[in-house]
């Protein structure tokens, strides 16, 4: 890949956050976790299936003008545990960290037990305890249902 192609595909951002090394295919779920949707005004670039040496293919999400905090991005570890977060200022990476699996995941994943109280009309958010990070094993705080596969399919 020559420089001009590279620039076209991955244009550097001035200020903001680059989420790199997202498991290929999970970029849209990352946006969902970050709450980026129709009402977001900032520029957001999404790259999918970018060739990657270590991962074969990866997704990348760039959020301009917003520096994401670890607490905001850690839930990404549920679906893309290898993600790295780069904080950019004046085109320079000033901070770089990996996502770390949180202890509790609230309001993001739907419980797989249809009879769980969190799947009813009650004004209650789903809440899961992360019992194991690798492999991912979540336990519903209400009905104790165990979620250990296809986590992305259970996103609200």
């Amino acid at each position, binding site marked *: 890949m020559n420089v001009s192609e590279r620039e076209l595909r991955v244009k550097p951002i001035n200020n903001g956050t680059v989420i790199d090394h997202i498991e290929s295919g999970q970029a849209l779920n990352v946006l969902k976790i970050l709450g980026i949707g129709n009402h977001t005004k900032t520029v957001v670039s999404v790259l999918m299936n970018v060739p990657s040496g270590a991962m074969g293919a990866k997704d990348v999400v760039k959020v301009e003008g917003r520096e994401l905090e670890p607490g905001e991005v850690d839930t990404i570890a549920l679906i893309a545990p290898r993600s790295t977060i780069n904080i950019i200022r004046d085109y320079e990476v000033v901070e770089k960290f990996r996502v770390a699996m949180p202890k509790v995941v609230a309001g993001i994943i739907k419980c797989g037990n249809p*009879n*769980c*109280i969190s799947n009813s009309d*009650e004004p*209650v958010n789903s809440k899961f305890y992360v019992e194991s990070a690798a492999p991912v094993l979540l336990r*519903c705080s209400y*009905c*104790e*249902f165990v979620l250990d596969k296809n986590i992305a399919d259970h996103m609200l």
Partner: protein
Amino acid sequence: MIFERRHIISTKDFSREEIDFILDRAQRLEPHARRGGLDLLKNRVVATLFFEPSTRTKLSFDTAVKRLGGATIGFDSSESTSVVKGETLSDTIKIIESYSDAIVIRHPREGAARMASEISRVPVINAGDGAGHHPTQTLLDLYTMRKECKKPIGDLNVAIVGDLKYGRTVHSLAYALSLYKTRLYLVSPEQLRMPGSIINYLREHGVELLETPRIEDALRETDVLYMTRIQKERFPDPSEYIKVAGSYRITTDTLGDVKNDMIIMHPLPRVNEIDPGVDSTRHARYFQQAFYGVPIRMAVLSLVLEKEA
């Protein structure tokens, strides 16, 4: 040990020491479970919210409150409540907590009691949440073993028989017995075996267990025969149900080779797992077990409402 204002949601929330503490309290209160005469809950109101029908659990909670000098309010089916008007459980709890000092709840959905405990400022006691937990049943089961067996709980062989897949009682009981390292025989038809996650938990916690479809494998060695009901609707083929249910039926003939002091327990209601002829044998303890629900619930209520016995 502090139980004041504590919610009682799942047996798994308790350590062995805490369970023993509750059983000790129940033992002290037991003489009063038949004749009352205590005022530990004087001027206290306990709400019993039964969104699903129940006979023993509801009535034994009512009795426990009254034996301790308290009063109850509540309902025993959701049909007569605002639920039919579409009120959420969350709203119901917010209202009832202002009428009462503790809330006992049975609800058809798993996790309902846990959610109620997050909303309520008064202690919530789970009396069964769908296929989830029923901690006071487990406590009264342990109390029965402690009272009716000649050996400590940890030295017993306990055979749990019947529907081990869906039965909430047996899941909670297995977890609790793992605290005592009790040896388990898990007797069930193939399609109703105990879930793998629970088996793994038991093994990881050092429980010696044997899974078998044949009740004969357990009868001779067991100190406690814990029978449960096998529900017809679990079997797509009715003839298969009749065959399986028949193979786990206990009659006086079945009891030929059992230990002299073996006891038979059952959370009740029974259908035909235990022949009525067994009731008069020295092994039957299921009616005694049902009575022990009263002292256990007295102990739990008095502990969460913080009054020394």
